[in-house]
């Protein structure tokens, strides 16, 4: 068992059973672990399915070396339990009885079938915070549908507004609905713990990844509910009247060109080293620029293609014009800025070696976050079975 101090971590002394698989639930549990909770991951005998997804070093599949699994399950212990056996369920029940928080991501109804639904355990564990994280929530016509970030992007409306106008709707990279769902679950668990601090009572939380993502789509539903306007995907211009706020190619990659509140007409003209552009109607008039954007781009693009992103970014920001970088995994990991802020932690993952811990999500002055390697499948099973006797 990892030693955990009650005073130097935010959530020291809390015990979490992470029965979830995939991304959303495990990410929620990892955040609780990084904040100091003791997190016991309960996996099926074959392991969380992300152990089989990779990436793997050298592309050689190995359940102990999955990059995705390591990213989501650092700082946890691992216990394997076969939920289809009486013994397995008995071990899990004991673990739940010892815990403050349970996180699960089974298809709605499945936990109750196993005799492990909220109603089944809340009598014995009245202080338990029982959090269910699923694609569509525990109720409603789609509750038992199978889902992932792609289906949630589709049903939330976000996908319809992402991509090029003449192509199919596009998913955002990196499985966004799972992470949104994981964050909502994390916030809700913390809120329920705060509630328990006042009342002494646990409860059930029903988190829907679709709704977590849907809440972020407010400005598109608002445009219909306020104006009857149906927003459609239109390159990277999600917010129409701020043009340009768009990603453009430059000499060595891409750059996000944003005029911001003060960029036009003068500072953008200076940035492009063509001061006469200050008088250009497309620099003077936002509406005209927005609507005649193709004409504006004829002025902008050639200059960008002759300059590098860091040069453009630095010169723009010196004038408080909010250009931004299009970062890649490599530029993020090589960033001086993130290095000085110590964003990436480092873990020593057995069998793999040194890997970045992603990442130091925010800085707390009294209770810094901690990182650790992901557990081998079932590494802590013996202790758990012993403890459950």
């Amino acid at each position, binding site marked *: 068992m990892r030693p955990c101090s009650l005073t130097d971590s935010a959530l020291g002394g809390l015990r979490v059973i992470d029965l979830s698989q995939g991304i959303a639930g495990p990410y929620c549990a990892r955040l609780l672990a990084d904040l100091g909770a003791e997190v016991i991951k309960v996996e099926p005998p074959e392991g969380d399915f992300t152990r089989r997804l990779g990436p793997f070093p050298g592309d050689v599949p190995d359940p102990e070396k999955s990059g995705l699994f390591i990213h989501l399950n650092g700082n946890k212990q691992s216990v394997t339990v076969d939920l289809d056996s009486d013994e397995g369920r008995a071990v899990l029940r004991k673990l739940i009885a010892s815990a403050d928080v349970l996180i699960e991501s089974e298809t709605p109804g499945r936990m109750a079938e196993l005799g492990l639904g909220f109603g089944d355990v809340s009598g014995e564990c009245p202080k338990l915070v029982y959090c269910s994280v699923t694609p569509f929530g525990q109720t409603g016509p789609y509750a038992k549908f199978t889902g992932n970030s792609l289906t949630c992007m589709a049903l939330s409306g976000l996908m319809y507004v992402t991509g090029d106008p003449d192509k199919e709707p596009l998913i955002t990279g990196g499985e966004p609905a799972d992470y949104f769902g994981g964050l909502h679950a994390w916030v809700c668990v913390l809120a329920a713990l705060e509630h328990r601090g006042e009342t002494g009572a646990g409860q059930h939380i029903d988190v829907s990844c679709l709704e977590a993502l849907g809440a972020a789509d407010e400005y598109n539903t608002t445009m219909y509910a306020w104006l009857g306007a149906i927003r459609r995907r239109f390159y990277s211009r999600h917010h129409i009247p701020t043009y340009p706020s768009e990603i453009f190619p430059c000499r060595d990659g891409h750059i996000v060109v944003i005029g911001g509140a003060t960029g036009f007409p003068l500072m953008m003209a200076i940035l492009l080293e063509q001061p006469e552009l200050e008088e250009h109607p497309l620099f003077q008039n936002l509406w005209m620029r927005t609507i005649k954007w193709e004409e504006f781009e004829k002025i902008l693009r050639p200059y960008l293609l002759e300059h590098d992103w860091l040069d453009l970014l630095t010169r723009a920001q010196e004038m408080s014009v909010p250009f*931004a970088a299009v970062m890649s995994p490599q530029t993020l990991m090589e960033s001086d800025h993130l290095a000085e802020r110590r964003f990436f932690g480092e873990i020593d993952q057995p069998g793999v070696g040194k890997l970045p811990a992603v990442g130091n999500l925010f800085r707390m002055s009294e209770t810094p976050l901690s990182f650790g390697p992901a557990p081998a499948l079932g590494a802590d099973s013996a202790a758990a079975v012993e403890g459950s006797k």
Partner: protein
Amino acid sequence: MSGLPLDGIRVLDLTQVYAGPTCTRMLADLGADVIKVEGLTRMDITRNFVMPENDSSDDYWNKAGYFLFRNGGKRSLTLDFSEEKGDVSAEIVKRLVAESDIVAESFRPHVMDKFGLDYESLTKIKPDIIMISLSGYGQNGPWRDFSGYGMGLEPAAGLSSLTGYKDGPDGQGAPLRTGISFTDPYSGIVGAGAVLSALLYRRRTGKGQYIDLSEQEAAVPVVGYALMDYAMNERQPRRIGNRSHWYAPQGCYRCAGEDNWLVITVTDDDAWRALCEATGHPQWASDKRFADVESRREHHDALDELITGWTREQDQYAAMHSLQKAGVTAAAVLNPKQVLLDPHLRERGFFDRVETGQGPRPVPHQIGAKFSAFEMPSARRAPKLGEHNREVLQGLLGMSDDEVKDLEERKVIGDTPATAVPLPVMRMFVQWPLHSYGQMGALGGIEKDYRAQLGIEPPASE
């Protein structure tokens, strides 16, 4: 049902626009008393975005759609920090800090220091105060003074390097951004969790603390997969459209009608056979080209053509239901109007009807979850500018009538914005040229009868 978890907790909210207000809106939904501070010369700019009926007459700043969602359930206090009013306003902020548990701010680094409102100074007023700063790039490091607009931070967090079509001039499409300001709501939620973690620590130890949140950093874990691939294999990410690194086929397929689409993920061989049966093409299941995930990935283009041959004849909702019934992961790609009308979200009660000053409108919940022990307040409107000036200054700080009148006369507080450009110009600016946006192709349509479609009664005067 019992009280809310943050009953009795007060948040002094100095944030504006999107990320900060999302953080404090979540705290408000969980029961906190959130006092939002805006300047008359610097009101939250989202008060200018999206007017009901595109009507910017009267007090339009109290009706804006983007403001309403992010600030529901808060109280509004105006305090102006421009020129000579800064000191007076900073003194009032300090008196409010003494009555608060949490201070949230989203200025650029060091603006708070300038007014003597840095964390250290605040602890002298309230030793156990919890303070959170939400900024584009954090409080230290070479980029700390960068201006961080939401539309730049999603690419800066690495997400756009993974978002894009698979075909393009460089062998892959250009990096693209999500159709929302992704990192704003995302980092706002991270901020809410950070504050709740600090509250739990304070409950146990009595100690407050300072939280430095960088909106760029908050979203980086979303690309954790690609970071690990780079760390393990030095592999650069490839933009692969709607395909999957793990499953095949996966994609977005055109359905019957105009701009209607269906997404499908075939998660394993069983799901593949189920898809073949459900679409009436059992022969695909015995085609050797599609025997396992590796061969399906190899022949993905051919598969996409076959699947599109089926989907383009299908209604998107019907196809979702028939595939899901067969055990295949699938979903209709809904446009914003369809989202508002979707039967699942309706049955879950995801949208509240909130009063806007121009009739009620559906507004999504901020927290995508339900709690069994308490019910979060619903359908709360956002405050009018300065709506709670007297309530806060007199009720909470015990100021006299004369003191408040004096602040009103000096325009430290008020209920009408002092905009940088004359108000008539602002009224024109905040009306959107929707017709032009439609002509550009940025809108899929403008429907005059939208209120009838949404089941919202138009005001009686019409």
